[in-house]
């Protein structure tokens, strides 16, 4: 019974995706949809093969590099800000609304402004990613740190533990689910911010490739790059989810 | 034909390493309107019997019949049958998002029973267990013992004919438990419910029951059956000082004591 379930959970999505590709291809071919408006799967495959080595692969590496740099800086940044703020109710009340405001501003709105102010540099892209990702991680981690059951904290106090020990033994483990919520959303936003930054700032990257292909009406290449971006985003998300399940299991 | 009967009921649980017989060859009969207790050490399958009667578990083999209706392995009990039964488990399991009153009346919602007579009955039951003032409170605001009392009256709100209770008063203090025992006896006398009562407290069982099944564990089996007869004497706390009461308790204790020695061997 369990064996059947596992097979089904693999077959079902594969079947659905195959079906979608077939319908997409059929619609494009039969309705004579222009390749420049909506390319068919076959056109995308051709573009992928043609442009892989020349543009898609190097652009993928550029995007991956800035995403990783941005994300790996945003994690400790957001985490430490949340950890420090959670130590004082006043600071939490002061900082949380500001973090929420930062979190809700789409970085796409700030990129043009930052371009004027800081100039066009690769570090600008990484800054944009950090600005978009760190607040989400901070807000969710802060929420986790401040919603620990009071009786557990009191127990630590009763045993004579200081604030740092209470934090690492009780607060942090209890906050893990919320922290991972922030990390998972953070990696999605990281992907989106990286793409927006690439589009706006240029100098390589999948977003740049998508925008540039669009200007030349090479829509198939653009779609190939979009699919690569989506796959990277999903893979990244699944990776963080995997880490989450390992950590949660280990905690238990 | 008894009102409720279990015939040659076995319940096996398979784990990765072995098979465990929670219940082996259980034969029990309950007559309409009787008050019967199941007594035995922990692990003797008493809770499993309640779950089988509630159709949450299916027996590995054997027959269960309630009021002429035979349980079968493929379907659930129909709603009209389950409405006749009330179940009380060891843990109150109240819903934290409902008020006490709403928790008590939850079975009515599932059974689609409506009307002012049920509203009144809910207030009566709350009053009966001394929690009338807490109707609008939430479970997180009351103690564990109070929650368990709410669990008990929740099991009765739909006026069942058959009442099955799995160690309902185990977590209560001595005084409250004695009060609840007497109240349960009052309700039983008034409503003529058939009561199946599971407990590890021998005095409680002897005080309230007309018959007691004594069970052994590993695997769970019926070791013996006792009829508790106080020759028409009123069942109340005075009974505890009766010599016959003490004899019954000692008999059962020695039975369970022997059982424990058996298990050690």
């Amino acid at each position: 019974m369990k064996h059947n379930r596992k097979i089904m959970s693999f077959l079902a999505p594969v079947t659905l995706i195959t079906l979608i590709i077939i319908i997409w291809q059929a619609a494009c071919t039969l309705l004579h949809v222009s390749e420049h408006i909506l390319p068919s799967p076959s056109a995308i495959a051709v573009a992928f093969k043609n442009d892989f080595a020349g543009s898609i692969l190097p652009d993928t590496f550029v995007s991956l590099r800035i995403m990783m740099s941005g994300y790996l800086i945003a994690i400790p940044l957001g985490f430490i800000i949340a950890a420090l703020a959670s130590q004082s109710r006043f600071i939490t009340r002061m900082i949380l609304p500001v973090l929420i405001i930062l979190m809700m501003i789409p970085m796409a709105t700030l990129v043009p402004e930052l371009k004027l102010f800081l100039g066009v540099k690769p570090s600008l892209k990484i800054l944009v990613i950090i600005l978009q990702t760190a607040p989400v991680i901070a807000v969710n981690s802060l929420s986790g740190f401040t919603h620990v059951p009071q009786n557990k904290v009191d127990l630590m106090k009763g045993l004579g533990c200081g604030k740092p020990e209470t934090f690492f033994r009780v607060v942090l483990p209890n906050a893990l689910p919320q922290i991972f919520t922030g990390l998972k959303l953070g990696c999605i936003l990281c992907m989106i911010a990286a793409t927006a930054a690439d589009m706006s700032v240029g100098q390589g990257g999948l977003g740049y490739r998508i925008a540039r292909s669009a200007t030349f009406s090479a829509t198939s290449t653009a779609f190939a790059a979009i699919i690569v971006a989506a796959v990277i985003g999903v893979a990244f998300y699944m990776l963080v989810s995997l880490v989450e399940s390992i950590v949660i299991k280990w905690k238990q | 034909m008894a009102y409720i009967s279990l015939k040659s009921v076995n319940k096996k649980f398979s784990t990765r390493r072995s098979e465990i017989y929670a219940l082996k060859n259980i034969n029990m009969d309950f007559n309409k309107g009787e008050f019967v207790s199941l007594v035995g050490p922990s692990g003797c399958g008493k809770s499993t019997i309640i779950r089988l009667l509630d159709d949450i578990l299916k027996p590995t083999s054997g027959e269960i019949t309630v009021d002429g209706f035979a349980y079968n392995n493929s379907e659930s009990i129909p709603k009209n049958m389950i409405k006749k039964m009330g179940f009380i488990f060891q843990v109150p399991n109240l819903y934290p998002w409902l008020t006490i009153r709403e928790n008590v009346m939850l079975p009515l919602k599932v059974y689609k029973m409506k009307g002012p007579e049920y509203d009144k009955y809910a207030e009566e039951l709350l009053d009966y267990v001394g929690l009338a003032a807490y109707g609008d409170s939430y479970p997180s605001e009351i103690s564990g013992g109070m929650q368990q009392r709410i669990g008990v009256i929740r099991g009765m709100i739909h006026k069942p004919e058959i009442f099955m209770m799995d160690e309902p008063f185990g977590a209560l203090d001595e005084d409250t438990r004695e009060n609840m025992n007497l109240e349960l006896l009052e309700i039983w006398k008034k409503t003529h419910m058939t009561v199946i009562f599971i407990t590890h407290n021998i005095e409680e069982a002897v005080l309230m029951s007309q018959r007691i099944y004594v069970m052994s564990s590993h695997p769970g089996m019926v070791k013996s059956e006792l009829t508790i007869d106080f020759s028409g004497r009123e069942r109340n706390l005075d009974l505890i000082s009766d010599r016959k009461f003490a004899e019954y308790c000692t008999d059962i204790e020695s039975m369970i004591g022997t059982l424990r020695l058996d298990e050690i061997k």
Partner: protein
Amino acid sequence: MRKTKNNFVNFINAVYPPVLLILFLFILWQTVCEVKNIQVWMLAKPSDIFSKFVENTKDILPHIGITYTNILIGLALAIIIGLLIAVITCSFPVLGSALTPITVSLCCIPMVTLVPTLMLIFGVGRSVKLITIVIQAFPIVTMNAATGFLNADPAHIELMQSLKADKFQQFKYCLIMDALPDIFTGMKLSSIMAMMGGITAEMTGGNQGLGSRISFYIGFSKTPEALSCIIYIAFLGAVLYSIISLIEKKAVRQ
């Protein structure tokens, strides 16, 4: 009388710390700009922004209305659709395992890349913006709601089984209440995605909404005006998130 006084005091206590911080940041921003003599077109000072704020607001008032409406409607639709799909995927496991990878993928596609194609098909009106917001925002709602439904307290479910409640009753009386915290998390996170989808769609095409105004003003190096648009966007985002948080506090009781 005492209750109102307490509520007022609580409100002030909650509001003054962040206001202090924001004022401090504005003063810092102003000082840095003046000391380093930064040009207006590069980074406008708070004083520049606020001196033109009222006049600018009158100009962009219709656009504010359009953006706010788009995002509110889009978010509402995304939440409804997201919850419906979550209920469907949890009720029909086969369909659920088919749809889950697609839902996760949709969430990870930056809609900014698909907006041009969508605009070729649907034009540059309101519908494109709403479609973008819904596609970007609903997956998060679905994923969190599904987690909530599948992680309901087994003890609570057992009570429903003991009463022989049917699937619909189990959902209505137990599952949905157990899942409520996760559902609200999903709604809060999807509001972030809705802002992102809506604003980037406006920046990409069409000349309606605050997003398009930002592109317009930057094109003419009118930085103070662009930044005042961003302030309106930040306000919308913060209020949206806070409203959902407030409703969550009232509705969720564990």
